């Protein structure tokens, strides 16, 4: 029997607004055992009256980097996310446990090609994978298709653009679902659909490893579309977050 994964204390080093609603939180965690791109941590917050809340957040940093970073989306009425985005500051301490989750992960040595599809902050685990690939100077082909509500919601926008400019096998596509203003060339102005999946990701014949992460309705829709264009279901990994599916 494996021994239990311990709670550790991380110190907040830096907090940065990435978008109007998403903040990156950089932490130093003494004793951190290392992690794989795609894994997550559990945070445990404790109020003075003893009340506790736990939530899971994906790691945005690759294994090669010192410390860990989370990217937290501020949810309206989010008990934990509003605290993390509005109140938390450098020097604060956070209780956390990890790394957790051994399924939605990727290492360079697994090869590719990779097809990554994200909705909103579902890009976070993919950021860890892409940073891991860059840190290893890997040329594994990776196509990332990100869906956002508006242009200003794009997380890690400049870093992603810089990595895509290297033309070392990393291709980036954005889909904007709610923008009224004109979009830059090469940005899709609609929800993810079949044509977009065929254009912006490796074809099923290339046998990519496919990962989809985002809010439940988006993941449900994209995973169904991926299977319908010929990706075998067993090669499509999904991770869903947030509120409701159909029945409530």
């Amino acid at each position, binding site marked *: 029997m494996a021994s239990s994964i311990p709670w550790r204390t991380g110190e907040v080093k830096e907090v940065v607004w990435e978008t109007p609603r998403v903040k990156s939180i950089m932490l130093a965690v003494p004793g951190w055992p290392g992690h794989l791109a795609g894994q997550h941590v559990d945070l445990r*917050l404790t109020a003075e009256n003893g009340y506790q809340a736990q939530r899971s957040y994906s790691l945005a940093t690759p294994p090669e980097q010192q410390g860990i970073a989370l990217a937290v989306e501020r949810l309206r009425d989010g008990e934990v996310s509003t605290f993390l985005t509005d109140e938390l500051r450098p020097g604060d301490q956070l209780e956390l446990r990890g790394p957790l989750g051994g399924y939605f992960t990727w290492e360079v040595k697994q090869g590719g090609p990779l097809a990554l599809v994200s909705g909103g902050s579902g890009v976070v685990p993919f950021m860890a994978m892409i940073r891991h690939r860059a840190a290893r100077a890997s040329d594994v082909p990776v196509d990332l298709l990100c869906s956002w509500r508006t242009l200003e919601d794009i997380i890690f926008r400049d870093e992603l653009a810089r990595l895509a400019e290297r033309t070392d096998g990393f291709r980036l596509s954005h889909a904007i679902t709610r923008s009224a203003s004109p979009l830059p060339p090469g940005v899709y102005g609609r929800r993810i659909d079949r044509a977009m999946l065929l254009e912006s990701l490796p074809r099923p014949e290339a046998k990519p490893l496919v990962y989809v992460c985002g809010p439940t309705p988006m993941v449900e829709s994209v995973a169904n579309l991926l299977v319908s264009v010929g990706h075998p279901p067993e090669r499509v990994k999904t991770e869903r977050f947030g509120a409701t599916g159909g029945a409530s």
Partner: protein
Amino acid sequence: MITRGFKGRGERADPSRVPPGQYVTSDFPVLSAGPTPHTPLEQWSFTIRDTDGSDLASWKWKEFVALPQTELTVDIHCVTKWSKLDTRWKGVTFDALMEQAGIEPPASYLMAFSDGGYTTNLPVDDLTDGQALVAWEYDGSALEAEHGGPARLLVPHLYFWKSAKWVRGLSFMEEDEPGFWETHGYHLRGDPWKEERYSGD
């Protein structure tokens, strides 16, 4: 450790109903490792297998939903921290399946297996005495595919990943062996009251 500045909502959940580390939601979130399978009902069957892999019993869909039915209203707890109270299900109990198959459980453990390749392991003792259903109705309606329809296992006193979606059968095992999430770092049994979330907890 007190988290500076954290107050929380201050509404503490009823500790007799909500296990440690959980919060109550009125939504019904979805957690799956892959695409949602959609098996046509005319191709659906539910099979109980012995430890040697031989079939002990099998029902087609129409036969299955004609088995003796039980309704349960229970609280459910997902390892991703949400709990949902007073959920209403209809299905057939594990006990009734054994009775209808005319067998006693031939071993102490089993693996539930599902469309899409999902598996999860369970001790038989966690299923008997009305503790578990194979459910095809949720809140008075046919169970939706993304919540595990046409039928899912329901073992409400364990974390909800044990309540396998799209379940197609149960395969008895002499020894306890890890299923899908259990081989990916999650606890072998998953009792939310003991916070058995991850391997070794």
